[in-house]
C-alpha cells in the first residue's frame, strides 16, 4: 500500500527536502522513498530529518516545567502541531521509468509540492538489483558511513535472505572503497548491528 510521507518543499537535482504530513513522523533514516517528476519516478534515500518551528529564528520554548506530564504538553497545547514542522532530506539515487531503473541522476529535479511516498518491499528489492547507487552515497560529505549502513539495513528487510543481500552489497562496497578497508570495516560493523 502506498504510504504518503510528505511533500517536496525544496528541490535540487541531487536532493530534495520534504515536509512530513505528520509532525515527528519522518521516514526512517536510510530508507528508500519515491517522488515523481512528470513520467519519471525519482528515488531517493532519506539522509536526515529535523523538526523545528515554522518560523525561522523562532525557537520553541520549553513547556514541561513543574509537575507536567510529557504527553500532556501536546494535548494541552494543540497549536504546537501547527507552529512546528518535521522535514526530511532525501538524496536522489536514481530514477525509474515504466519499471526500468536507472541508478544515476534524473534529468530534472522533483517539482516542489510533489508528494513523497514510501517504497514497497518488492520495489526496494527491484531497485536494489543493482547496487551502483551506493557509489553516490560513498561521496556524501557527512555521516556517509552511517547513511550507507542504514540504507543497507533498510534494504535488507525487503529480502527473504537478508544475509545474502548484505554479503553481495558488502562486496560491491568493498570494491567501491577498495583503498580504504578501515572504512569498509566500520560500515560492515554497522550493517551487521
Amino acid at each position: 500500500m502506498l504510504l504518503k510521507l510528505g511533500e517536496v518543499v525544496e528541490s535540487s537535482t541531487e536532493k530534495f527536502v520534504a515536509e512530513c504530513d505528520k509532525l515527528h513522523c519522518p521516514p526512517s533514516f536510510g530508507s528508500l522513498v519515491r517522488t515523481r517528476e512528470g513520467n519519471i519516478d525519482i528515488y531517493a534515500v532519506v539522509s536526515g530529518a529535523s523538526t523545528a518551528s515554522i518560523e525561522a529564528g523562532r525557537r520553541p520554548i520549553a513547556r514541561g516545567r513543574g509537575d507536567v506530564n510529557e504527553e500532556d504538553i501536546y494535548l494541552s497545547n494543540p497549536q504546537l502541531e501547527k507552529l512546528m514542522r518535521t522535514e526530511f532530506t532525501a538524496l536522489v539515487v536514481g530514477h525509474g521509468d515504466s519499471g526500468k531503473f536507472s541508478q544515476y541522476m534524473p534529468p530534472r529535479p522533483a517539482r516542489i509540492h510533489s508528494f513523497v511516498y514510501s517504497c514497497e518491499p518488492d520495489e526496494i528489492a527491484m531497485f536494489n538489483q543493482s547496487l551502483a547507487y551506493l557509489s553516490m552515497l560513498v561521496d556524501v560529505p557527512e555521516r556517509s558511513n552511517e547513511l550507507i549502513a542504514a540504507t543497507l539495513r533498510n534494504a535488507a528487510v525487503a529480502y527473504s535472505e537478508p544475509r545474502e543481500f548484505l554479503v553481495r552489497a558488502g562486496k560491491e562496497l568493498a570494491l567501491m572503497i577498495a583503498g580504504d578497508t578501515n572504512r569498509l570495516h566500520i560500515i560492515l560493523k554497522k550493517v551487521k548491528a
Partner: protein
Amino acid sequence: MTEDRKLGFVISGALTKGIDVRLDGDISVEDLAVGRYVTIEGHKRRFFGMVTDVTLDASDQRIMSAPPDVSDPFIAEVINGTSTFGRVHVLPTLTIGDDAVSLVEGPQPVKTVPSHFSVVREASEKDIGSVFGSVTEGQFYIGTPLDMETKVRLDTAKLVTRSNGIFGKSGTGKTFLARLVLIGILQEGSAINLIFDMHNEYGWKGTSEDNREIKGLKQLFGSKVAIFALDAENARKRKVSPDYEVEIGYDEIEPDDIALLRETLGLTDAAIGVPYRLARYFKGRRWLEEFLTIEGKDALSELAESLGEHEATVAALHRRLSILRRMPFLVSEAKGSAIDSILGYLERGIHVVLDFGRYGDNTAAYILVANLLTRRIHAMYRERTERALAEGGAKPKPLVITIEEAHKFLSHELAGQTIFGTIAREMRKYNVTLLVVDQRPSGIDEEVMSQLGTKITCLLDNERDIESALTGMSGKGELKAVLSKLDSRQQALIFGHAVPMPVVIKTRDYGTAQSYKELGFREALGRKKDSDKDLKDLFAE
C-alpha cells in the same frame, strides 16, 4: 576437477615476466598449485600457461597493520575476494588463434600477452590434449600433468635428435625417469641405446624407493637388449646372465683417457703431461702396461730422467695409476674386442647395457671405461655418417649414450677434453646424442647444459643447481619456483625441445604388473614367466 572452471582475470603482465591473474572471490588460493595449467581467453586468441607463483594480496595495504575482524563470518565473507584476494602468476607459453589457419597450425609459441581482464580458466583435459597431442596405441607417454588424467606424450624421435638431461636430487627418481625414457626410446624404436649402467639399475632389474624389485630393460625387451658385464662374477651373483663379458686391454688406453681421471685420481697438472711422453717413450700402444710393470724406486727415477720429468711427478703418477691394476677387467691382452662386439650389437639394432657390477662405485673405472668405449664408438659413427654423406648411403641409426654422474665427464674443466663434451656440443651431426643423468647440474659445463635439448628435472633445491638446470630457458625465473616446489617423489618438470611447453608431470607408474602391461609387454610378461622358471631351475638350491 570441474572442467573449465573460471579462476579470475588478467590484471597485469609482460611477455618477459609473465602474467598476473587476480582470482575470483570463490576461488581459494589453496586450490591452486604451481605447475598447474590454465587457459587465458584473449580477444583474438587463447593462451596456455602454467601457474608459477601464488600470492596473497589486498586492495589496501593498511589491512595488514589493521586487519579486519574476521572472526565475524559476515565480515570475513565480504572481505574475501574483494579487499583481500589471491593472485597467481602465470607463465604463458603457447597460443592458438581462433581463425581456421591457426587451428590447423596448432599451438604456437607466445609472442604477445592477452589483453587486460581476459578471463582465465583452469585448463581442461581437452586443452592439454590439444597441446601435447593424443597418445595412440604404441606411442610413449611419460606421465600426466598434475591433477589430470591426460597423458603427456614424449616424442622420443624428436627427443633423440639432441642430447638430453635428467636431473634431480638423489632419491627423487632420476633413475626411475631415465629408465622410463629409455623404455620409451626402445618402445618406439627411435634410437639405439648404449647405457653405462653405473649402479646396475637398468639391465636386468632395479630397485624402487621402497626396495621392491622392478624389471630392467632386458626382462621387458628380451632379445632386443644385451647386457655387457664388466664384472661377470658379480652379475652372476645377482642372477644376471650377461651376453658378453667385457675385457679391456691395456693397449686400448690412451694418454687422453688418463687425463680424464685427473680429478678422480688427484693428478697434478705436471702429471697429466707425463702419459703423452710415456706413450712416445715406449713407442706403442702398450705404454701403460709397460709403465705399470716398472717396479722399484731406482727404475722409476731412471725413467724420469730419460723422460726429462721430475722424479716425484713420475713416482706419484705411477702410484696413482697402480689403482688400474686392481681392476680385473683390464688385461694385458683382451680376448676379444669389447668395442667391436658392442658396435656389432648396436649395428644389429640391439640395445646395450654395460653393467658395471662392483666397479660402479669405482669412479675411476666408470670414467675410464665409459670414455674409452664412447670415444671409439663415436669415431666409428662419425666415420659412417661421413661416408654416408659422401656416398649417399643410409646414415647409421641414432645412438643415445646414457651416462650417470655426468658432472664427472662434463665438468667445466673436462668438457673441452672428453668425448662426451664433443658429443654434447656437436649434437646430432653424427647421430650420436647423450642422455646425461646427474644430481649436480651445476657441476656440468654451462655450454654443455645450454646444448641439452630436453631437460627432465625432478626436485632440485640447491640454488646453483636450479640455475644451471634452467640455463637457456625463457621464463627461467618463473620456472625456478616450480622446480624447487616439486614433490620429492614421482614429479618432474619437463621442458625443451621434445615437449611443446614446460610441463610438470606426475611420472607414470612403473614397477607394477599393470604398468608393465600398459607399456605393452603382454608378450614379454609371458616370456618372463618362462624365463623365471628357467632361472629357478638353473639356480635351484
